């Protein structure tokens, strides 16, 4: 008995039994009560971190989408403004062109009217002049030739003819 007790490598049956029971007991407790709880905490922590990251990513995506949409709107507005400006320029040019044409037309019309009136006045002046010159010439001629000639001369148109000849020779 003493010899076996002195050999430290000889196991004790009671201690083997106790060791098996104690270790199994501890294993069951830790496996069923402790490990799942720690794993739960780890999973929850991972999810919390990943959730936070996902949230931030989502927010960033939203911000980027908003920025893209604003940029698009801005460029649209710029393009629109460009188109409007272009249209306005074209319209302005058209209006100017139109007005110019109109003014030109008006000017032409006025000029033509002026020409016409001048011509008319000239004709009138020529007619009256011719008439006066004729009268004067007739008067002069009657004074020279005698009064009786007056009616006869006018009827034959001698004066007119004379004046026409005069104009012809002038040309």
């Amino acid at each position, binding site marked *: 008995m003493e010899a076996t007790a002195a050999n430290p490598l000889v196991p004790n049956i009671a201690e083997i039994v106790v060791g098996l029971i104690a270790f199994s007991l501890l294993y069951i407790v830790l496996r069923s009560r*402790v490990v799942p709880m720690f794993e739960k905490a780890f999973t929850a922590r991972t999810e919390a971190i990943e959730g936070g990251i996902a949230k931030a990513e989502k927010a960033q995506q939203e911000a980027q989408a908003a920025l893209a949409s604003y940029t698009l709107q801005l460029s649209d507005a710029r393009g629109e403004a460009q188109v409007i400006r272009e249209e306005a320029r074209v319209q302005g040019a058209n209006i100017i062109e139109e007005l110019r044409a109109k003014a030109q037309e008006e000017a032409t019309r006025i000029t033509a009217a002026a020409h016409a009136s001048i011509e008319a006045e000239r004709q009138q002046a020529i007619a009256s002049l011719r008439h006066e010159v004729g009268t004067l010439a007739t008067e002069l001629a009657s004074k020279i030739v005698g009064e009786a000639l007056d009616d006869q001369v006018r009827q034959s148109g001698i004066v007119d003819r004379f004046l026409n000849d005069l104009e012809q020779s002038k040309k």
Partner: protein
Amino acid sequence: MHITGHLASGPGFVPPSTTDFKLPSIFGHSDYATKPVVLVFFSVIVISLFFILASRKAAVVPSKLQFAGESIYSFVRKDLGQEIIGAGFLDYVPFLFTLFVFVLVNNLFGIIPLIQFPTMSHVSFPYVLAIFTFVIFHAVGIKRQGLVKYLKGIAFLPGVPKFAYILLTPIEIATYFLIRPVTLSLRLFANMFAGHLLLLVFIGGGNYMLHDTHLFMKILSPFSFGFGIVMTFFEFMVQCLQAYIITLLSALFIAGALVEEH
């Protein structure tokens, strides 16, 4: 206590021996009522209570207690489970975790005041742990690869010239079925046994010198006590290290059994 008993019985200094590990029953004469048996059950209760309290809330933001428990658990989980076993390691974490904390606490009993007895210095307990590791890693290997293929993988190492099997086959079989469990348990046992013996020598020696009639011996006794304290710190390191090593080796054996070819 038992040391002074020894000293009183003999005339000179009686060095501590293996009989110092044979502790009497606390009550009655049953082998089931000795100090190591009580300590082992005590360790089970202490460890269970601590970790149940620490893990009860499983909060995302841990309390100090939860953090302490988690740190130990995640050390075993990551450094001994994930990094060594790799894929599917989670199945073996409960065993490795139990093994680590069980050995650690029982080792630390060796230097905790009033307890001061490392239960693993009784070889029966390391034997039990080795049996668990032995059964588990062989079971894992057989389950993963099938009995015949697993045994063939052990006996006939692939990629080795045929004539080498004369030498290798007996070595491999001995390694897997004898050397591994024996060294696993004896390493732990011997470290705890020797450590306890060492503390007994210095503290018992100091005690003997203090009670010696010579003044010279009385003066020298603090040195013996002092070295006993130094060795206590050293023992703390060895106790933690041995808990780590037995868990590490168990994880390595399991990892080896999981891999198809050895």
